[in-house]
């Protein structure tokens, strides 16, 4: 039976301070003279809450324990109601090692094992753990996973029957058991591009307004500096100079932000796992077993499309919407050149192959997309008609806004028509869709847990259909493309009904 690292207490207190700081300042500094009941009682509540939490943090450290055997973790917690949960190693989907500044200070790290289970106990988190112990825990889980892979071999053999090439790949995989291959590290040029596409230079706006909020009240006399302001306005040169300096500062801040987030980024893989390391100050190490990846997604926002960049995301069955990560953990790298993205996908997951030429929609689909009523536009227009808001003193603003919205809706639909491409091959499904932001989805037939296709009245008239797939994730991942020919929907269903080809059943149910 093991307790968590004693510094967990300190870490939680640090988190408590971090989270309650703003509220504390509001209650005791900014509004210290306010008699408003909310602040009056809020202060008592705040103190009571913080004290209770402090007691809880200390006591819970004594109560929360964990232990392990060959196959499972057992976690115990609960002050009044004892709670024990058992989590088998085989259910662990991915591992994240997050080293914040706090951890660096003490030479420690944190470790999260995410599982595909639903509910509160879906992850095993070691908020503070020594590096050796972290390595030990990783080892513990990994050893079990290599046991697992023996079980899976049957399946991969079955897969590789299809092409010899795949068989070779499998053999190659078996040979390089532990060799790490680095696939991607961003160059400075990549990072520069990224800092412009991410619009991170706009970050200066909240920073400046934030600074003004803090400094503003401290500045002595507003009349006094209104004079300065007028002088600035009057001199054209000063304005030009100031705005140039402002822009340069904004760009520099944007670049620094991008470098600290995406600099020192490495994507590597072994035969069984994919590893992503990132961050200068806050380090994150993320590992996921290839076997557990349900599909892939490439996302291009309008701006990224202009720059030829894309973001690749892994779809895994674990719940990866963790709270305090700046970059979503399942994202490979948000600013990959599109060809590099395809290449990386194939390198990391040899099962997957990206086909460049895909089926496109016919003109009929375009008519369908344009004819479909936009409920969103109708509701907004009705609202605008009723309230008739005046914006910038323009009386006609309501129908101008409505018209603008209509144009955006139409443009989005035309773009969606242009972007939609689809292909099903042997055991793989791949499609692009989306308007302003377009997305590619790619998955294997055996990873799809349910399919459906549907037809609205209008689609029936045009002989079109919408098709959907569902993949394991939390919540279940549903992907849809609209207005494909009905024949393709039927082919799609037929293809799915051949699913047994790719799957093998467990011996004992």
């Amino acid at each position, binding site marked *: 039976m093991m307790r968590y690292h004693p510094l967990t207490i300190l870490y939680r207190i640090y988190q408590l301070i971090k989270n309650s700081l703003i509220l504390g300042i509001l209650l005791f500094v900014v509004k210290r003279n306010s008699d408003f009941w909310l602040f009056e009682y809020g202060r008592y509540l705040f103190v009571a809450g913080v004290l209770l939490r402090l007691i809880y943090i200390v006591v819970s450290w004594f109560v929360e324990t964990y232990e392990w055997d060959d196959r499972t973790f057992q976690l115990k917690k609960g002050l009044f109601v004892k709670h024990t949960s058992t989590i088998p190693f085989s259910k662990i989907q991915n591992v994240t090692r997050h080293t914040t500044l706090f951890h660096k200070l003490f030479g420690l790290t944190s470790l999260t094992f995410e599982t595909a289970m639903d509910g509160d106990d879906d992850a095993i988190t070691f908020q503070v753990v020594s590096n050796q112990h972290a390595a030990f825990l990783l080892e513990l889980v990994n050893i079990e996973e290599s046991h697992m892979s023996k079980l*899976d071999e049957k399946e991969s053999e079955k897969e590789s029957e299809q092409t010899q090439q795949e068989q070779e790949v499998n053999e190659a995989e078996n040979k390089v058991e532990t060799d790490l291959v680095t696939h991607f590290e961003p160059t400075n040029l990549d990072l520069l591009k990224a800092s412009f596409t991410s619009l991170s230079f706009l970050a200066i706006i909240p920073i400046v307004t934030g600074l003004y909020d803090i400094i503003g009240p401290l500045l002595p006399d507003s009349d006094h500096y209104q004079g300065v302001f007028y002088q600035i306005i009057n001199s054209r040169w000063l304005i030009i100079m100031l705005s140039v300096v402002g822009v340069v500062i904004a760009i520099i801040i944007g670049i620094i932000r991008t470098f600290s987030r995406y600099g020192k980024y490495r994507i590597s893989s072994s035969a069984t796992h994919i590893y992503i390391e990132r961050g200068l100050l806050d380090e994150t190490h993320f590992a996921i077993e290839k076997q557990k990846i349900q599909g892939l997604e490439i996302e291009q926002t309008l701006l990224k499309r202009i720059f030829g960049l894309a973001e690749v995301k892994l779809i895994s069955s674990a719940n990866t919407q963790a709270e305090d990560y700046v970059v979503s953990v399942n994202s490979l790298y948000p600013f990959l050149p599109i060809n590099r993205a395809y290449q990386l996908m194939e390198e990391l997951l040899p099962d997957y192959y990206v086909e460049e030429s895909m089926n496109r929609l016919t003109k009929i689909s375009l008519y369908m997309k344009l004819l479909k009523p936009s409920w969103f536009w109708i509701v907004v227009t009705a609202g605008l008609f009723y309230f008739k808001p005046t914006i910038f003193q323009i009386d006609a603003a309501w129908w101008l806004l409505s018209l603008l919205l209509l144009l955006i809706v139409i443009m989005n639909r035309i773009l969606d028509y242009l972007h939609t491409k689809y292909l099903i091959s042997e055991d793989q499904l791949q499609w692009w869709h989306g308007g302003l932001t377009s997305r590619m989805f790619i998955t294997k037939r055996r990873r799809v847990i349910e399919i459906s296709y549907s037809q609205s009245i209008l689609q029936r008239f045009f002989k079109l259909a919408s098709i959907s797939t569902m993949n394991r994730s939390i919540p279940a991942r549903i992907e849809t493309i609209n207005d494909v020919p009905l024949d393709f929907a039927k082919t799609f269903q037929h293809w799915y009904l051949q699913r047994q080809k790719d799957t093998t059943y467990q011996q004992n149910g």
Partner: protein
Amino acid sequence: MNELEHRLSSKFPKARIISETIGNIIGLIVLAVLFWLDYYFGWPIWANWILIAVLLFAVAGTIWSFIEPHYLYRSWRYQISNEYLQLSYGVINKEWVTVPMSKIQSVSTSQGPIMRVYQLRSIKVETMGSSHVIPALEEQVALELRAKIAELAKLKEVDE
């Protein structure tokens, strides 16, 4: 593609209309009470408008609830094989669903008071990400189907 094999019980439209009508009557009574309260306490004018809008929807919904069950019955088909459960249904939007047996996690039947009168049962199938209901089958058919799905769903794929 060929139509799927099985249909719902032919008693489905009748049972559905009765249960929906009961629901609608209760809804309309509640609405009538609200109108009376509006009149009695002199609620503001916008409350009036909302009530009228709700009334319009309720009336339209009531009319629809008399028409829909027949068409829904005609559209509903299901079929099971050793590997898949297939469903197709829908009046305005038509839907075709394919679920692999190995992904089904639970199957249950249930019976409300009106369905008991007609000796019908509904079947609910749940997977990791969705749930599907076959709304009305003859009691015997439903129990057999449940047993069969439960048997077939026992097989699990290696993948998980």
